[in-house]
């Protein structure tokens, strides 16, 4: 399969200004992550709040500049892109945001919202705008009567459908779904997830699926990357990561997911303490202050991703 996106040792450090201290400090939001996504494949990115998932998405979208590292679209480095290439890049990579209430311009009708990307990237001629808008709305299960309505006239699920229609309008190769269902109720979540899966099957789109919910990630992803304090701590096929998780953090995450079986005993692994500040990341393994199995080496030496089985990798000294 063709590699659509490749991320290589990507870092994003945000400089913070301390009025008391002249010493420069950095929030290491993303700290040297690497992964690749093939055509028609979904990579699920999971982790706690503040682990750097959304920042990774924004870096890939080129909405923020990385501190170091590189992103490749179909083998071409983003750094080598000129203005014309960047426009094509914008066409090929789209985003669906978490909050469908904020992601649509309240002053624009649905028709205008959907026409805008069509006109920017000249997807169809202006005489075909209305037909294209009708087609997009029907793909996401909305009626052509909705064309002249404003975003506030729709429910959350409908707005997210419009967000998806807007993303697929430019016929992208890759879509970043930044927690697209977390603001929706459960019944609507499944509709949106099924819609995304159907679109992937029909249009061969690749997804980077950012989410908190492990069940959602398990449902949609081919591969999973677990992030902790800006680093990928476990990466691999969805089945092997969820069934044979190797990193203690992934084990804790998987164990915390509710199981709809009252007879099964709850074996939750409760993590001690809070996630450390990304300004002062602990020495050695960043997870060691919360890890119940931590040994001496964990406090001194940073673990790197190492092979567990096949593509499955984890960053833990205990493997």
């Amino acid at each position: 399969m063709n590699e659509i996106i490749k991320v290589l040792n990507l870092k994003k450090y945000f400089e913070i200004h301390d009025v008391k201290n002249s010493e420069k400090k950095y929030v290491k939001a993303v700290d040297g992550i690497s992964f690749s996504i093939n055509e028609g494949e979904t990579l699920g990115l999971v982790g706690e709040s503040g682990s750097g998932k959304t920042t990774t998405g924004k870096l890939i979208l080129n909405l923020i500049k990385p501190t170091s590292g590189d992103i490749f679209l179909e083998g071409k480095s983003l750094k080598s892109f000129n203005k014309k290439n960047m426009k094509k890049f914008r066409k090929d990579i789209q985003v669906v945001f978490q909050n469908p209430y904020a992601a649509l311009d309240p002053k624009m009708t649905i028709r205008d919202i959907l026409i805008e990307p069509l006109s920017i990237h000249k997807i169809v001629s202006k005489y075909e705008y209305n037909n294209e808008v009708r087609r997009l709305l029907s793909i996401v299960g909305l009626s052509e009567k909705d064309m002249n309505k404003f975003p506030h006239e729709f429910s959350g699920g409908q707005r997210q459908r419009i967000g998806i229609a807007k993303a697929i309008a430019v016929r992208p190769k890759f879509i970043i779904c930044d927690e697209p269902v977390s603001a929706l109720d459960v019944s609507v979540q499944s509709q949106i997830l099924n819609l995304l899966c159907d679109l992937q099957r029909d249009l061969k789109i690749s997804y980077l699926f950012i989410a908190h919910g492990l069940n959602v990630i398990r449902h949609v992803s081919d591969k999973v990357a677990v992030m902790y304090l800006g680093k990928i701590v476990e990466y691999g096929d969805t089945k092997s990561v969820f069934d044979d998780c190797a990193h203690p953090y992934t084990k804790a995450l998987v164990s915390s997911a509710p199981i709809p079986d009252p007879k099964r005993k709850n074996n939750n692994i409760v993590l001690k303490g809070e996630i450390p500040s990304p300004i002062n990341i602990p020495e050695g393994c960043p997870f060691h202050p919360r890890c119940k199995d931590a040994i001496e080496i964990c406090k001194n030496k940073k673990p790197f991703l190492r092979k567990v089985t096949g593509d499955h990798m984890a960053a833990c000294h205990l493997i």
Partner: protein
Amino acid sequence: MITHRNIIRKIFSRVLVLFAFTYISIFIFSIPQGYSWKIIDGRFVSTYPLYMIVKRCNNIFISLLELNLGHSMMGKALNEILFTSFKRTALLISSSIVLAFVLGVFKGISDSNKGNKNCASTKVLISVIPISIPDVLIAAIMQSFAIWLNKKDIYMFRVAGTGTLAHSFLPIIALSILPAFYIARITSLAVNDCYKKAYVLTALGKGCSSARILWNHVMRNAIRGIVEGLPSITSIIISNTLIVEYMFSYPGLTTSLMNHITMGDGRSSAIIIVFIGSFYFILNGLFHVVSAVVNKSNRREAI
């Protein structure tokens, strides 16, 4: 039905406030010069009977309601004085509002950090400083500038007086500076707020140019906040009109008011004050209507 009732209630309450303001203004100017009062042996004794003041006030109020404005102490018809000076003041105020709006919006856009949090705040400081400068000083600086230009045989701006359009330029600029910087602050904040919204990020991701994002997405949404701030600058403009007209000897409504107060013409002064007050009410109401029209979601609330 509810909307119509709300409109009638709103208009009624505004008219009531206008009437109360009118009556109080006329009452104050009905008090004769040298009026004083004392309490002698527990009795209230005044130099002029209170019922006479009330009667005098009522007479003026009724004649005003009948639109019988009468004549000033100088023997001139008051409606003629009002009409002439109102024309000049209306030109001054309306031009300065337009100028302030245009300047303020562009300065505000330039001041905004456009989503870049690390942008220097020097531009913002430049907008904040003029807000704290008194209008008298601004007018004086303008006049000094005009004198300097006149000395160089450039007569584009006239230092004071009226008669030609050139006489209006400096008062209009002097009156628009302060509100322009207020609008600039409002615009800057509204634009910054819009740049944080997810739909702007989405537009960036779609490949919109920065100009398209600014005008199609940011300004379309920010204009709501800017227009909502317009009623608050009405009072600034009206109060500064007094200073500007006085400094530039511009014969508008407030200059006319000052002249009549100096002459001790209480009746004419009261009527001019009522006229200025009504003008303020109408202007403020107009801004509220514009704000409601621009902001569709607040339209019902505004009604």
